[in-house]
């Protein structure tokens, strides 16, 4: 019987010819990632274990991106733990403020993750790298510590769900909308413990940015990983970037799926997730009048250059609505620089938006744009749980960058078609 792309990658990393759903395996890792929230606990466990050196100084990656540039003394202490450890262990991939970016935008951009990899990260959105055809999943600090010691992770081989998008996408519909549509249909635990495989004509036409954005939110359906088979777009993206030789796997025709769901991509609209779950979705045409106090364009979901270009194109020559704060957060320094080059910075500043250095910042209610009680934000981020962007009495709506740009101009949730 055939295997899925996920099963093939896991088998290869477990040193087995084949694996089946439910098998418990030890998989060898290509990369293990931590950030300024999760790595301090992992480092402490690493030290307590008596281990002297990390398994591979080129494969343990530390990215202080959540509370940086540090918002207070306590968060500065957390970042310092990463800095000291990176120095001591001579880690090749530690990124200081000034070169740091949001981890799941930064690692693909730098070619640190590539097709065929097995990757864990102590951050739930580590599933992003499935867009490159890698097996990639979020874990906690103890798993990261174990990986830092051994280069391995224990995993249960997941069952797979297939989502097929045929047809052409309408204008303004992106990977973010496809994943919001799925989450709306199956719920926040609809893919619990499972692998989500995205395929079909519409997926193959998606840009790498849009694919990363889509796989990023597999966890919001409870998925273990989200994955897209590598194709020409993947190969073009990896060329001259990948630090390891990519390995291109694809699913066998007779691979087994617990479900196959087909969508007509041409019928989909931009989607908006209402508070307080990413599954609480509505198409933009059914949103109604929702006044907004803050718009955030950024994050590991939608802080890439394509997202910035879409937003700038819509906002050019216009003004942000009165009393609306619009925050633009490019996810990496390369994106920041490209925005300067292309004149996008000028567009955003002229229309009254604030542009920030890369940070996770407001996405998790960390800093740089916290909401007061009773306020509403529309964000291109990935979660809208109670208290996610500040006050537990605030509300967060999730959407793509085009909807976010239109919303900033109108001061209410708006379709880009209205501009």
């Amino acid at each position, binding site marked *: 019987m055939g295997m899925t792309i996920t099963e093939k990658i896991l088998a290869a990393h477990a040193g087995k010819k084949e694996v089946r759903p439910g098998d*418990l395996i030890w998989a060898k890792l290509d990369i293990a990632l931590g950030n300024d*929230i*999760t790595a*301090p*606990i992992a480092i*402490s*466990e690493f030290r*307590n*274990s*008596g*281990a002297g050196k990390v398994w591979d100084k080129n494969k343990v990656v530390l990215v202080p991106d*959540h*509370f940086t540039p540090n*918002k*207070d003394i*306590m*968060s500065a202490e*957390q970042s310092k733990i990463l800095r000291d450890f990176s120095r001591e262990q001579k880690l090749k991939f530690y990124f200081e403020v000034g070169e740091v970016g949001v981890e799941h935008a930064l690692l693909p951009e730098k070619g640190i993750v590539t097709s065929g990899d097995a990757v864990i*990260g*102590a*951050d*739930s959105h*580590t599933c992003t790298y499935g867009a490159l055809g890698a097996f990639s999943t*979020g*874990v*906690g*600090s*103890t*798993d990261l*510590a*174990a990986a830092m*010691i*051994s280069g*391995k992770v*224990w995993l249960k081989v997941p069952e797979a769900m297939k989502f097929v998008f045929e047809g052409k996408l309408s204008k303004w519909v992106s990977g973010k909308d496809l994943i919001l549509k799925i989450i709306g249909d199956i719920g*926040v*635990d609809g893919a*619990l*413990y499972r692998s989500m495989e995205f395929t079909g004509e519409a997926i193959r036409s998606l840009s790498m940015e849009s694919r990363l954005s889509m796989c990023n939110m597999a*966890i919001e359906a*409870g998925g*273990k990983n989200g994955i897209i088979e590598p194709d020409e777009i993947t190969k073009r993206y990896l060329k001259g970037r990948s630090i390891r030789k990519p390995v291109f796997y694809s699913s066998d025709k007779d691979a087994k799926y617990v479900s196959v769901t087909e969508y007509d991509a041409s019928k989909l609209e931009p989607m908006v997730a209402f508070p307080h*779950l990413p599954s609480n979705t509505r198409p933009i045409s059914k949103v109604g009048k929702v006044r907004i106090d803050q718009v955030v364009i950024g994050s590991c979901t939608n802080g890439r250059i394509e997202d910035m270009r879409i937003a700038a194109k819509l906002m050019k020559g216009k003004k942000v609505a009165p009393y609306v704060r619009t925050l633009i957060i490019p996810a990496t320094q390369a994106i920041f620089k490209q925005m300067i080059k292309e004149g996008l910075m000028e567009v955003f500043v002229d229309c009254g938006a604030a542009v920030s250095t890369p940070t996770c910042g407001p996405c*998790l*209610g*960390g800093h740089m744009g916290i909401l007061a009680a009773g306020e509403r934000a529309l964000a291109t981020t990935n*979660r809208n*749980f*109670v*208290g*996610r962007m*500040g006050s*537990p009495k605030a509300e967060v709506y999730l959407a793509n960058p085009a909807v976010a740009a239109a919303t900033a101009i109108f001061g209410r949730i708006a379709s880009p078609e209205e501009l």
Partner: protein
Amino acid sequence: MIFTGKVFKYRDDVNTDEIIPARYLNTSDPKELAKHTMEDIDKDFMKKMKPGDIIVGEKNFGCGSSREHAPIAIKEAGVSCVIAKSFARIFYRNSFNMGLPILENPKAVDGISSGDLVEVDTVKGEIRNKTTGKTFAVAPYPVFMQELIKAGGLIKYVAKNNR
């Protein structure tokens, strides 16, 4: 081990932002984290609970972020175990890895109400609702995971097998 405690029961999809909001994650000190356990779903949880008490959730308990701070806060707060119909996968791994007892048991969840007194016997593999008298059998861990427990947890296991 045997735990006995009063039950605090919550809905589906209790997420890690509700268990320990990110605004408190500028530390990883268990004592600091524990002060804010369950704050965004039940503001007074820490005032109401006593050490040994039990949290019961419906589906998908612990969804959202990978922060191990969530099971750390729950454990440090003195909660003896969490029972749910299902757990989000990262929360499940984290709890298993750091030693917070969690039990997946849909029947028990349906047979337990907030305020019930519940006894959990991990050796016998039994959840007993002392308020109603009903008991529920708990399935043992797979052998693979039992070996991690025997070794004293994941870190001790890899530290030993890595030498």
